[in-house]
């Protein structure tokens, strides 16, 4: 027994880069097996996320950003399938979870909110019912759990069943927490009696009710109008600061990323093209794709009103991806090697700023040989 427990303690430490790492995705691959062929929606992406950190995943439609999130949540529907890689959450590889473990994991430790709040709530049940269900299905009594954790004597009673009254109380608190007035009355209303922004708030309340450690927000503001978008972003920022959870923010809105994220991954055709701290990405973009994205974004702070520069070409046909770098055919710097080999994601300038582009691989080699030459001298 003792040996076993030791093993349990030592096991998480043996996983790489464990200090404070909440989510560690390694070489995740997801494919859709369609009648016309395999679509590699996510083709070997890696990143890690610390607790209390907000990461943005940006990319155009079809770049695989949502699919990657669904893979982590175990929400992939046939014909989508995870075909490789690992996803370590708090040291456990969640891809090894069976159905039951996944059910206990989803909504509890990790939650997700979706793009369209108008269709994401069940129209035939009240908001209160749907909120409370999230609590009761995990049978989670947070206050008692916390007390129990504080009080070692109560350890045996750690998982106490939550009563309906307590669930109701907690749901009302949660609605107030996300800024819904008249929460008691709102609990008894149906989704169609809520406005779009209110529904997204309710969705957020539902996602956070079990106090998850990680929230995946899949384009949570795309379907809302601009003023409401700003409110929701502010709310999420506020909630993140308050609860200290991590957020993966999937979006194609770079402005939102700048507002809320600590770091960013830029995805294109199932690959991460560039990754790094948010300031690095915005002020010092390394990948031609990121540069293109930024150039195509309207800016308010610029005095001269120049034309926006679009990225030429069309997004990749994932059924028939180009050989080599997937961005190659659209890239103005495309070289010979770009058409034959996908570049690795390599460090550009420390601080975790990485890019997958042969331009930088070349530079890195050049730097290395320079350094080598210097040391030789």
């Amino acid at each position, binding site marked *: 027994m003792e040996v076993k427990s030791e093993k349990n303690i030592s096991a998480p430490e043996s996983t790489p880069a464990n200090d404070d790492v909440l989510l560690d995705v390694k070489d995740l691959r997801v494919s859709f097996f369609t009648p016309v062929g395999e679509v590699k929606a996510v083709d070997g992406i890696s990143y890690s996320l610390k607790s209390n950190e907000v990461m943005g995943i940006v990319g155009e439609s079809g770049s695989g950003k949502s699919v990657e999130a669904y893979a982590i*949540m175990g*929400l992939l529907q*046939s014909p989508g399938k995870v075909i490789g890689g690992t996803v370590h959450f708090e040291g456990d590889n969640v891809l090894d979870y069976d*159905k039951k473990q996944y*059910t*206990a*994991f*989803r*909504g*509890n430790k990790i*939650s*997700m909110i*979706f793009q*369209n709040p108008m*269709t*994401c*709530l*069940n*129209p*035939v*049940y009240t908001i209160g019912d749907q909120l409370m*269900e*999230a609590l009761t*299905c*995990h049978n989670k009594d947070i206050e008692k759990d916390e007390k129990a954790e504080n009080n070692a004597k109560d350890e045996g009673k750690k998982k106490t069943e939550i009563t309906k009254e307590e669930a109701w109380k907690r749901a009302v608190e949660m609605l107030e927490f996300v800024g819904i007035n008249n929460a008691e009355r709102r609990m008894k209303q*149906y989704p*169609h009696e809520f406005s779009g922004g209110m529904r997204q708030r309710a*969705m957020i309340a*539902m*996602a956070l009710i079990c106090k998850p450690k990680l929230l995946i927000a899949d384009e949570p503001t795309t379907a809302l109008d601009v003023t409401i978008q700003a409110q929701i972003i502010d709310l999420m920022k506020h909630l993140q600061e308050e609860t200290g959870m991590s957020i993966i923010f999937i979006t194609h809105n770079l402005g939102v990323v700048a507002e809320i994220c600590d770091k960013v991954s830029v995805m294109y055709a199932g690959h991460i093209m560039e990754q790094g701290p948010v300031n690095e990405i915005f002020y010092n973009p390394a990948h031609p794709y990121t540069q293109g994205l930024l150039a195509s974004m309207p800016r308010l702070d610029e005095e001269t009103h120049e034309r926006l520069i679009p990225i030429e070409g069309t997004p990749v046909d994932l059924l028939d991806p180009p050989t080599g770098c997937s961005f190659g055919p659209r890239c103005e710097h495309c070289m010979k090697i770009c058409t034959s080999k996908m570049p690795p994601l390599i460090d550009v300038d420390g601080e975790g700023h990485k890019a997958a582009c042969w331009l930088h691989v070349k530079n890195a080699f050049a730097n290395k040989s320079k350094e080598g030459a210097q040391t030789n001298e």
Partner: protein
Amino acid sequence: MLTYILKRVGSALLTLFIVAVITFFLMNAVPGSPFMTEKSTPEQIARANEKYGLDKPVPVQFFNYMKNLVQGDMGVSLKMQEGTRVTELLFQQGKFGISCRLGVCALILAVIVGIPLGCLAAYNRGRFIDSVIRVLTTVGVAIPGFVVAALLLLVFCNKLGWFSTISGSLLDFKSYVLPVMALAFYPSCHIAKLTRTSMLDVINQDYIRTARAKGLHTKRIIFKHALRNSLIPVITYLGPLTAYIITGGFVVEQTFQIPGLGKYFIESILNRDYPIIMGTTILLAALIVIMNLIVDIAYKIVDPRITLTKGDV
């Protein structure tokens, strides 16, 4: 809500009146008379017509019939034992009662078999179990009722000898089994198909994904979140089905020798027994109208977005 109900009752009465008018005049538009047989002489026919008031002009007959109907009198049968009152035949002799009991049992069976089968098929879409259910229900919908009844008789009465071939007046539990199965066979297949189609549509909805993301168990997702949303087409079908099934299935009642209402629907027309045609038609029409009202209220219960009071009635 009260105005809504009043409106619905008003429109129901109007519907029934129109049904009565159409039936009455159509029935009388057919040449000949109920008493015309090969042997009957013109005098006999005239005498009988006079006795039952059939010698008067049709509009007058209709007026008289409606006058009596309002007072709850549906007239007397022209063909059965003299003086058999239609209301008595329908309600007091237990004809309607028998059909109704049988029908309700069949309905319950159809629902508790059909809906879970549909859910099961939808949940296992594309897998073996789905194919099995799909083939079964498609075959079930295609087989005529008399074949099902005859097959049941063949297997359970002739081969196995578990039940008696004649169910009679349904006095004990055993006599219910086969007729109820025969009567429920088609509806349960149809309900299973409806549920499957509707649920397949629902389980691809965003809110089902939300439910999964919440960490709900599959059973709960299917039976709580998906089922209620997929019930509307089933309810729509159940309304008129209830009306038809509780007024008796002619084939099933004939096959199992059950003295229910079903056979009067057919016999009265063959016999040109006007008051019984009118009685059974009005009864069925009334049931359908009532069921439609119940269906509309059920919609509201199942889906809170549906409002009853707005729009036309």
